């Protein structure tokens, strides 16, 4: 017989009360666990999709572009793209850099024409930044020679196939409507309607020709294994371009190590802007800037989950506080007797807390029993979201959404269940320990 064993038996003394409390804990733990994995899925799948499909880890844009983004301004470009790209590739954490030109395009085939978002891409560079090159379902990816890529659905609607000639119309930077004929090189499919149905990828040179641009792009997309590092490098680089020494063109040794040092080194060792004038201001943005619907949606969902969790656990703690108090009250003579026999105050406290732990163990076990099959289904089989999401929903949920369960989710949920139980028992435990022995035994030993 030991304190743990006594505690266990005390817990089972009142089956009803114990059951109710265990159910409460179990529900809290189950919900916590299920939701943690669901929310992790956002980060693992959706954020990753957003970054690898479109936004990259960070982007560089001309200052003022983002504010004017709805009109797809062609007067706010980043000049000297090729040289700039060389410098960017030397930044710490950056593995890929690719320039793009965003423009309003009208795509025409013999069957008709449709308005789309055109993106001129530096195809070889883009392959190192996004997964577009791996999403080609028919034909082939762009190789730098003139060509266009369309989404599978749009290609079908336009009645074109790889090899067909497509006309692209756009208003150039001078306000003149230009057109260019391009061969459809390949058909892509991200499985994400918002991109598949609205984007047309054109090789960079053709886009520049169509829009009356020189060696300019509207954005440079950066990629690297650690998004924060890429973002930091981008910011440092943008800042260094604004620094007075940037246009000087003096040769300086590259300082390895610090981000700023490397960026400054890269900047200092490069050629000035084409006209020798000060370089136009460039702004760096993290990928979240370009996925606001996704990020805010995930945040709202995650936020509401945390609020519910707090409410649930507050209820659980209150319930256990109540139960434990009652349990202590019912046994007060017994507890005073144990004290009279020589049990110390901390021994009484520990007894109550052990009981609380047993209760928590029951609740946690029950909670996982219920949650495990649900988690397994959500994680392995996933949920068919496509029925609920409109095709142009701006969050790449994909057709089947998978939650992502990690070991720490289970540990955290269990810890919270146990923590809540203990938290609710602290006050009753203290009260039990402080019972005045003689008084509690009530006038008689």
């Amino acid at each position, binding site marked *: *017989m*030991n*304190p743990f064993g*006594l505690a266990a*038996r*005390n817990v089972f*003394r009142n089956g009803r009360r114990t059951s109710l409390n265990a159910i409460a804990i179990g529900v809290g733990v189950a919900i916590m666990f299920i939701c943690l994995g669901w929310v992790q899925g956002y980060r693992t799948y959706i954020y990753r999709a957003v970054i690898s499909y479109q936004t990259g880890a960070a982007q560089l844009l001309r200052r003022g572009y983002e504010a004017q983004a709805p009109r797809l301004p062609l007067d706010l470009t980043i000049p000297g793209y090729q040289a700039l790209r060389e410098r960017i590739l030397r930044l710490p954490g950056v593995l890929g850099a690719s320039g793009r030109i965003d423009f309003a395009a009208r795509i025409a085939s013999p069957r008709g024409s449709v308005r789309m978002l055109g993106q001129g891409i530096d195809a070889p560079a883009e392959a190192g930044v996004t997964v577009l090159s791996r999403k080609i379902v028919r034909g082939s990816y762009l190789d730098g020679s003139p060509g266009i890529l369309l989404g599978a659905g749009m290609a079908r609607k336009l009645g074109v196939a790889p090899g067909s000639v497509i006309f692209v119309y756009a208003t150039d930077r001078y306000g003149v409507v230009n057109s260019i004929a391009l061969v459809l090189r390949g058909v892509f499919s991200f499985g994400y309607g918002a991109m598949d149905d609205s984007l047309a990828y054109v090789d960079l040179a053709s886009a520049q020709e169509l829009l009356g641009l020189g060696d300019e792009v509207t954005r440079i997309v950066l990629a690297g294994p650690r998004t924060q590092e890429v973002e930091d490098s981008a910011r440092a680089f943008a800042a260094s371009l604004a620094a007075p020494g940037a246009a000087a063109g003096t040769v300086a040794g590259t300082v390895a190590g610090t981000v700023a040092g490397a960026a400054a080194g890269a900047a200092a060792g490069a050629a000035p802007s084409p006209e020798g004038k000060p370089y136009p201001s460039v702004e760096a943005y993290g990928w979240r800037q370009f996925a606001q619907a996704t990020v805010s949606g995930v945040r709202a969902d995650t936020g509401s989950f945390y609020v519910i969790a707090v409410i649930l656990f507050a209820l659980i703690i209150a319930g256990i506080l109540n139960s434990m108090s009652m349990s202590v009250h019912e046994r007060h*003579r*017994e507890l*005073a*007797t*144990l*004290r*009279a*026999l*020589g*049990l*110390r*105050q901390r*021994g009484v406290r520990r007894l109550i807390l052990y009981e609380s732990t047993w209760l928590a163990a029951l609740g946690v076990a029950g909670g996982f029993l219920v949650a495990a099959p649900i988690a397994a289904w959500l994680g392995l089989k996933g949920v068919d979201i496509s029925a609920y999401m409109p095709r142009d929903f701006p969050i790449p949920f994909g057709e089947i959404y998978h939650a992502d369960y990690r070991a720490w989710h289970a540990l955290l949920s269990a810890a919270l269940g146990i923590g809540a139980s203990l938290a609710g028992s602290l006050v009753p435990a203290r009260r039990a320990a402080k019972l*005045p*022995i*003689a*008084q509690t*035994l009530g*006038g*008689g*030993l």
Partner: protein
Amino acid sequence: MTLVRLENIVKDYALGRTTIRALRNVSLSIEEGEFTSIVGPSGCGKTTMLNLIGCIDRPSSGSLEFEGAPVAELGDDGEAELRLRKIGFVFQSFNLVPVLSVAENIEIPMMLSRMPRSARRPKVEELLELVGLSDYAAHKPDELSGGQRQRVAIARALANEPRLVIADEPTANLDGATGEGILQAMRELNERAGVTFIFSTHDPRVMRFARRVVRLRDGEIEEGGS
């Protein structure tokens, strides 16, 4: 050797807005090996005195010494230690833990004093035999009669071989014959093992068993004190 010494003990209780003086300037010495009963009408302070001697309550003023050392200097943990190793309790309403078996109830003080489990088993058996309940080791308290429960309580009180056993009206909830049996057992333990017994009672038959009687009335010792 003087086991317990009370000097000028005063104990007050608050009852609503009034104060009740349960013990008025009581002085008493208990020697080792005594078999003493504290008697008096109900409300005279017997229980209060036993509570103080057993260190489950503290006097309002006066000094209490156990084995020559002042109890007031012990903190809460010190008192608990004292209760664990030196003092045994037998309660009027037995106060056994209902979820534990008879053997486990007896084992409680041994567990508290960290006696290794291997040593506990034989000791429990020895005690069970002492109180004549060897066959009831696995029973739960609510399966036993009043007398049997009290005997378990006595066995429990003796678990850590205390110097002093305090019993408050130990036979109050037992019928005459059973009560006598209990007292006989206690007396035997006192004579054979030299365990000091102090018990309270208002039953004259029980008083007969005591070698020394201390009479209390209205919180003061009438006779038998020293």
